[in-house]
């Protein structure tokens, strides 16, 4: 366990706040700031973290894809007024004017995706999977464990791929073609299987899947019926809202009833799972600061999105302007998300000063 890690709830607030800009706007200025903020957090959290390399390669992969899509957008999308140069019209698909607007559009679309990748990578570096799992509500406990294992699979694979490759390189293995992949893939498969077996055994040993509270068959049937009815109400209600605009009240009522039934059913189901925790979560000064920063930033952004939606609107093609707008308030909302990185850095120094080893 990393002792310096901040509280997962605080980091979740940061995650929500940081993910809002890339999800709600295409404005390149806000996206650039978000990217930089996420990058700073990522580099701080990645210091001395074994999985950081795996995440960094994922981000690099995303960046490569982004750079590849920009020329694709430019060559296939011939809208816009500011023509950079023109390809002969006779060339299929790519012929025609190549515009600055399509370049901007390709750039902004990729910026949002890279930003999201970096944000989620930083979050994963900051928060331990096991700690995250403890935040899952009781009814979702088993599903949460499965999800956590699945989520951890890709970075684990990536890091063991790196290990195996280095080990084989030390042994003099040279990669020339597809056939040379075999000495890399075989150990990877074996390691993955071994890890899965180990995990299953350790979960069994800790009593995973065991039910501590006896439930009568009647109670279980009631809970399951409630869940089914809730899901049906939710589905029919959402369908009614979408397809029968004149029956809006009915649709909303059905949706609300479905959500209510689902919540009661889940709560009932959650009562059957009892869990105890060994480690206590500590709320420190820094945890509170990170939480406050995340909540403030997210609130500013959400309020803007709901009340001043046009501030976030950006679309380079005519008749709109290719020049993005910039509002200082929103800039600060993004800027303050860099503070957690500085706090973590400061905390590391204090820990280092106490323990010089």
């Amino acid at each position, binding site marked *: 366990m990393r002792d310096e890690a901040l509280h997962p709830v605080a980091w979740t607030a940061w995650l929500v706040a940081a993910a809002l800009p890339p999800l709600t706007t295409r404005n390149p200025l806000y996206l650039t700031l978000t990217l930089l903020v996420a990058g700073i957090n990522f*580099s701080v959290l990645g210091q001395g973290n074994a999985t950081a390399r795996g995440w960094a390669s994922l981000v690099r992969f995303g960046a490569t894809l982004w750079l590849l899509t920009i020329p694709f957008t430019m060559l296939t999308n011939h809208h816009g007024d500011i023509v950079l140069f023109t390809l002969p019209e006779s060339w299929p698909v790519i012929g025609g004017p190549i515009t600055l607007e399509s370049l901007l559009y390709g750039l902004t679309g990729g910026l949002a995706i890279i930003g999201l990748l970096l944000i989620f990578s930083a979050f994963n570096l900051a928060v331990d999977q096991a700690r995250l799992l403890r935040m899952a509500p009781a009814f979702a406990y088993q599903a949460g464990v499965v999800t956590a294992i699945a989520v951890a699979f890709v970075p684990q694979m990536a890091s063991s791929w790196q290990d195996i490759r280095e080990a084989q390189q030390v042994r003099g293995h040279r990669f020339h073609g597809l056939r040379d992949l075999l000495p890399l893939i075989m150990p990877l498969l074996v390691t993955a299987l071994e890890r899965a077996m180990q995990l299953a055994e350790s979960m069994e040993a800790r009593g995973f899947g065991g039910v501590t509270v006896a439930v009568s068959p009647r109670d279980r049937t009631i809970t399951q019926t409630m869940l089914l009815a809730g899901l049906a109400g939710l589905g029919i209600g959402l369908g009614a809202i979408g397809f029968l605009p004149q029956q809006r009240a009915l649709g909303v009522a059905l949706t609300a009833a479905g959500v209510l039934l689902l919540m009661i059913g889940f709560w009932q189901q959650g009562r059957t799972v009892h869990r105890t925790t060994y480690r206590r979560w500590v709320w420190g000064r820094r945890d509170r600061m990170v939480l406050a920063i995340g909540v403030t930033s997210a609130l500013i952004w959400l309020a803007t999105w709901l009340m001043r939606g046009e501030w976030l609107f950006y679309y380079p093609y005519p008749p709109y302007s290719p020049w993005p707008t910039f509002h200082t308030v929103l800039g600060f909302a993004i800027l303050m998300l860099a503070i957690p990185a500085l706090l973590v850095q400061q905390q590391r120094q204090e820990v280092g000063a106490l323990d010089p080893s």
Partner: protein
Amino acid sequence: MVLLLVAASLGGASVSAQSGMNRAAIIARFADGQNLVKCVQFSEASISGEELLRRTGWTIVIDADTDQGAAICKVNETGCEVDDCFCRCRGGSQCEYWSYWHWIGDEWEYSDWGATDYDVTDGALEGWSWGPGNWVTGTEPPAFTFEQICNANTTQQPAGNTPEPRQDLPPSGDFESEELTVARGACTVLDWVIFDAEQVTLDGAPVDAQDRLEVCPTETRRYVLVATNAIGQLTRELTITVSGDAPPASPPQGAPTTAPPPQPPQQQPTLPPVNPEGAGPSPILPPPNAEFTPAPGPILDAPPQAVEVTATPIIRPAVTDTPPAFVLTLTAFPTPVLVARAQSDTAGDERPSPTPILVALAGGAASAEQVAARPAAAQTAFDPALLPGYGVFLLMMAGLLGAAAWVWQRGRAR
């Protein structure tokens, strides 16, 4: 001979792009049943349906980022914003969007292609329609023919398909000019289409409900078209600005290349000018560069914005394409000089209409939805009001880069 010279002066502005000039007609049908039509000229062998729509000069909002190519979200003020292009299609079997149609044979066919992928060739008639529909069909645009839109200088109204004149609406229609700014001594063609009117006058003289008139103003002046019926009156005004510095060497009359040649004065003018006594400047002279001035008279149900003036350059037909026009000069009235182009029989049917004309059909009055404050077309120019925001952005970037450098340095120190 003299007439040929005049024609040369008319077509002289754009002699280059003459041969192989193609035309296509386009209709946009709006929610209230009102239509915009336009004849678009293009020099290419074919252009895409989307390009045709762009060249109309209407305000078009296109979502360029769909998988099927571009989707038309909005024409003028009808439709959806680009971030939600099919905002009236929220599931269900019926929805409203801009559907795309081709006039094939004798009827409208719902397009199987996207506008980006469809090639429009010479003589095509294309339709766009906002109305209830689904993904297989939509609301058909009104029946029209290519000739009705592109040969509108045949003085008959589009016959058959246009609704009967209605007595319950004030007159509607449009009045436009090929060019709003002309060099001194050069000419331009006014053209207008008015519906449901009992009487139409141009500067006080009765004219047909749909016609064209060549004018060669020697100074900036205003043309007023008034249409009346039992219900009300429609006033449309057009100001032709004469750029003073244009051909400095040529006097207002006499120079054969730019000015219309003198004609025997006994020819009666078909249109007397408004201010026959006016040797001086017109009393209603608008400020320079003003394209429109609001009509001072009572306007019923037709805001002045409804007059659409295309900003696209208009290519005029070649010298040889134009049959000699009958030109008369009014020497009796020194200014302004009106030159009426006679609608001779030979000219009427064969001469291609060089003007993209705009017709508001179907008797509807201009709806508020359509004419209300249009956004300015493509604002590609930088707005200086953005500068402070950009300054703050650069400061923030600098701060963040400083923080990144600090973090990096500390990380190395560890």
